[in-house]
Structure formats: structure tokens, C-alpha cells
């Protein structure tokens, strides 16, 4: 865990005395919490189903039933110092890259409201990439057990160390909100997905989101760009570079070193009350080994009293090649030939990690208590031929391009 991930804890400690010992009138501090107890079962026993690239294991090969995908607890303090200045600290515990539930500071920021409709925040702020990115951990706020994994795994980051500004304008009966973000982040990931474990370093991040709300309809557009470095991949490219110009060309093309990545997404939702429908499409272009991928989903549900059955179709595909001829082998001296063959194999294995699959999900949410909901969900995952899909921790008998049935049950609550 990098230092950057922990500094927010200092804010929490610094805030505590401010409200605990304040004389009258005490600045209002609100405590809130959310959490999910979830279990998932996968019929694919030769690999783990991994919802998110930062989790170390899941259901399938490691566990028959796993709590890792959805179980989490978030605690939040919101402090209002003056009508214009407030601060939020959110600590989140969920399975991480080490397989532990060590809490991390998800958000810690100070907000200044220049007007009720124009605010700026500094600190660790949400990275609002997708429609429900900012609440993807808050199961209670979403209709499903988890947001459609195909799309939400495209960019698994949820926070950003930096600043953001939000401007809300009223246009007749409609509301338009523009949010701009700048910052950086470090995220540790395990080797479960097939890459060497390491840290994804995001630098020079800028993103802009525009959300237009009119009555029950929301239209949303987002765009982001950053420089991404994953040092764990560098040994591979250093080896390629030893093979002269062809190796250097491969390295230049695929290395994840200070690489410009771009993201674009559009989404729409309609929720008149008795039913809801939503859809999103997004594309993530890394100009590197991580490739270019796009994903979309469409989802809808119908509310019958406290019970909401829903269905979702989601798809992710690679928009860049999942294989490469690699180093030309002709004419290589026999003593380096095995190395070249090996490097080509590794390169192609990694390119083939670009997930290609689609999932049909059906589920039901039951609001059995005022602040708690029970959900059950069935997913039928179909992996494209030759692809490894969104699986990891592969066993020797894993067959690419298979099918898996997932069964999930979750209880969400908010306080």
C-alpha cells in the first residue's frame, strides 16, 4: 500500500478532535455507513470469476462460494464546518490485491461551496467515470448485486488524488451538471489476472463529465485522459529491446510506460418510479499491451411493491488485436531462438488477456427493511472463443471460450 493511499487517514485523525472537543455550537458531524454481505458461486471450477482486477481471488477454483466479489463495509464521516466548507472521509474495507480486507481511505476531501451550485473539492475525490461509479460500492443504491462487470471492469479505479469542480445549472425544468477532475492515483493489483503483480500508476489525469437530468431521465457523457505506467511489465519489454530494431518496435508499441490512455463513455437512464431502464457504452484505449476495449450493457427492472425483478445484458470486446506475430524468428542465431520464442509466447498470452465475453443476468431485489435489501442474481457468462474472459487464477485444465453460471446472493444496508 503506497503512502499516497494512506494520507487520508491523517485527515480523519485531524478531524476527530475538531468535533469531539468543540465548544458550542458543535459543527455537525454525520456518521454514515454502507455495506454488503455477499456470496457468489461459479460453475467454472478451473478458474476464479473476478469482478475487479484489484481482487486476488474469487469463486470457482479457489472457493466453491466466495464472499470476495461483493462483501464490503464503508464508513463515512461528513463534517460541516461552515455553511460553505465541509469535509468527507470514507474508509472502505473489501477484498484487496493481497486477499485481505485491510481498510483503505476511499475518499477524503474538503469541499468549498462557492455558491450552492458551484463547488470545488480537494483531496481524494471520486473518479466519476461511469454512471454509477461513485456508488458502485454502495450496493443499496443500485438495483443489482453488482454493476454490470463487463463495463465497470473497463476502468476499475474509483478514486483520484487531486481536485474537482462541479457546476450545476438549472435550465427550465432540467438540471445540467458539469464536473471536471484533475489528479493522480496509485492502485496495487495482484497477479491473479495473469499479469505480474504491481502498481498501476495514473498521472496527469483529467476528466470531464456532463450529466443532463430532466424529470426522470438522465443523459450522461464522460471523457478522461491520463498517463499510465505499470512497472511490472518492464522486464518483458527490456528483454524485447535486446533483439534490436524489431524488439524495440514491439516494446515501443506495447510497453505500459507513461502511456497516454483515453476513456469515453455515454449513458442514459429513465426511472419514472414503477420501472427503470438504463444503458451505457464506454471505450478504453490504452495504446499499449492492455489494448483497446469497449463494453456496453442494457438493464431494466420493474417494481412490484418492495420487490424489483431486473434483467441485464452486458458485453465486452477487444477493439485491438489479441495476438501479434512478435519477433521474426527467421535468421536468429540458435542460442537466442528459444528466448525469442518464449518472449513471443508471453506477449501473446498477455494480449489474449483482453476479456471478450457477454453475460445475461436476471435477479430480484427485495427491500425487506427500510435500510436493507436482499438480492439474488443469476448470471450466464459466455466467453468468446479463444478468450479467457473475466476470469483469473487459472488451473491447468481451464479451457478458454467456455461458459459459466454464476449464482449470487447479497444483503445490502445503509445507515
Amino acid at each position, binding site marked *: 500500500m503506497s503512502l499516497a493511499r494512506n494520507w487520508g487517514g491523517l485527515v480523519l485523525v485531524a478531524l476527530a478532535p475538531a468535533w469531539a472537543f468543540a465548544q458550542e455550537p458543535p459543527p455537525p458531524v454525520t456518521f454514515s455507513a454502507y455495506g454488503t454481505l455477499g456470496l457468489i458461486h461459479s460453475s467454472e471450477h478451473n478458474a476464479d470469476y473476478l469482478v475487479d482486477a484489484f481482487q486476488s481471488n474469487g469463486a470457482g477454483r479457489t472457493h466453491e462460494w466466495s464472499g470476495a466479489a461483493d462483501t464490503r463495509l464503508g464508513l*463515512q464521516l461528513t463534517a460541516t464546518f461552515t455553511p460553505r466548507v465541509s469535509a468527507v472521509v470514507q474508509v472502505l474495507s473489501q477484498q484487496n490485491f493481497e486477499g485481505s480486507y485491510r481498510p483503505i481511505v476511499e475518499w477524503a476531501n474538503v469541499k468549498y461551496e462557492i455558491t450552492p451550485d458551484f463547488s470545488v473539492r480537494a483531496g481524494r475525490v471520486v473518479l466519476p467515470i461511469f454512471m454509477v461509479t461513485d456508488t458502485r460500492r454502495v450496493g443499496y443504491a443500485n438495483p443489482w448485486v453488482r454493476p454490470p462487470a463487463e463495463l465497470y471492469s473497463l476502468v476499475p479505479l474509483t478514486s483520484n488524488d487531486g481536485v474537482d469542480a462541479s457546476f450545476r445549472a438549472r435550465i427550465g425544468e432540467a438540471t445540467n451538471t458539469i464536473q471536471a477532475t484533475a489528479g493522480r492515483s496509485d492502485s496495487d493489483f495482484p497477479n491473479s489476472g495473469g499479469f505480474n503483480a504491481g502498481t498501476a500508476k495514473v498521472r496527469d489525469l483529467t476528466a470531464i463529465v456532463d450529466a443532463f437530468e430532466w424529470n426522470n431521465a438522465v443523459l450522461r457523457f464522460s471523457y478522461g485522459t491520463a498517463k499510465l505506467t505499470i512497472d511490472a511489465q518492464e522486464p518483458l519489454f527490456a528483454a524485447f529491446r535486446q533483439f534490436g530494431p524489431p524488439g524495440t518496435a514491439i516494446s515501443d508499441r506495447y510497453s505500459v510506460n507513461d502511456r497516454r490512455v483515453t476513456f469515453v463513455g455515454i449513458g442514459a437512464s429513465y426511472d419514472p*418510479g414503477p420501472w427503470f431502464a438504463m444503458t451505457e457504452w464506454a471505450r478504453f484505449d490504452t495504446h499499449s499491451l492492455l489494448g483497446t476495449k469497449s463494453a456496453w450493457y442494457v438493464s431494466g427492472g420493474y417494481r412490484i411493491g418492495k420487490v424489483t425483478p431486473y434483467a441485464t445484458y452486458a458485453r465486452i470486446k477487444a477493439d485491438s488485436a489479441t495476438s501479434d506475430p512478435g519477433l521474426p524468428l527467421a535468421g536468429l542465431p540458435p542460442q537466442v531462438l528459444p528466448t525469442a520464442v518464449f518472449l513471443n509466447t508471453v506477449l501473446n498470452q498477455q494480449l489474449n488477456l483482453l476479456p471478450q465475453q457477454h453475460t445475461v443476468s436476471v435477479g430480484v431485489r427485495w427491500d425487506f427493511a427500510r435500510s436493507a435489501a436482499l438480492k439474488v442474481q443469476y448470471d450466464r457468462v459466455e466467453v468468446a472463443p479463444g478468450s479467457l474472459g473475466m476470469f483469473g487464477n487459472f488451473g491447468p485444465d481451464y479451457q478458454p471460450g467456455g461458459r459459466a453460471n454464476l449464482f449470487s446472493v447479497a444483503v445490502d444496508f445503509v445507515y
Partner: protein
Amino acid sequence: MRFRLLIGLVLACGIAGAALGAPPDEVVAVVSAKSSVTALTASEVADIFLGKSSRFPDGTQATPIDQPEESAVRDRFYSRYTGKSPAQVKAIWSKLIFTGRGLPPVQAADAAQVKKMLAANPAAIGYIDSSHVDAGVRVVGRP
């Protein structure tokens, strides 16, 4: 004698009829009588209570006041003005809370406290059963 009985019956029926036919208490959106706000549409009221807007249409600041969870008037208010169930309203607020975009409205204990808070703050807006309306408040919205 007979005539009197008849009048008695008619009166009794009339009273019973009035009691049966009277509309049940309507939930109305109210502001302080000192507020500059005079009328709001149901969707303008909904936007203020669901955190979509922090202002009245005339641009002045709006501070919503809720009634207690589990109270019938609260459930009726949200159902009539926003078309949403208590769970949906809770889900909407949990989105705003856990993204640091806002905190839910302050909560009054009952209609009397709503009226007290309105009197103290001309920017406040609440909802009460129409039977609780008095000279201190102005009805600005009906479902």
C-alpha cells in the same frame, strides 16, 4: 314530531355524508408565510427534496425539512410528489451521501416542529397534512 325526526335524519345523514365524503388529509408543501415563494410545481418540490436542486425557481436558497422516517405523512409525501417508494428515496439519498454531494434534509419530529422551523428560517420548505395548515405557513404546492 315526524317532521322533526325527518330533519334529524337529514341532518344526521348530512353529517355522516360530509364525514364520509370529505377528502382525507392531503399532504401539502409549505413555506414560512414570510417567504417570497408563492407556488411550486410537484416536480420543483420533488427536486428540492431529492437533492437535485438547492434553490427555489426564483433563485433563492431552499432548505428542505423532512418528517420522521416511518411516519405516514412522509411516505405519502414522497409517493405523491416524487412517485418514489421509501426505499427508492433512501437509495437516492445514499447515492448523494456516499459521494459527498449532500446530506439528507434535517428531520422535524412532527408537523408542529416543521412549522416552528419554517417560522425560524424563511428559506425552509416542509410538508404537513393540510389539517395542520395555519396562518404562519403558506401552501406552495399540492400533489
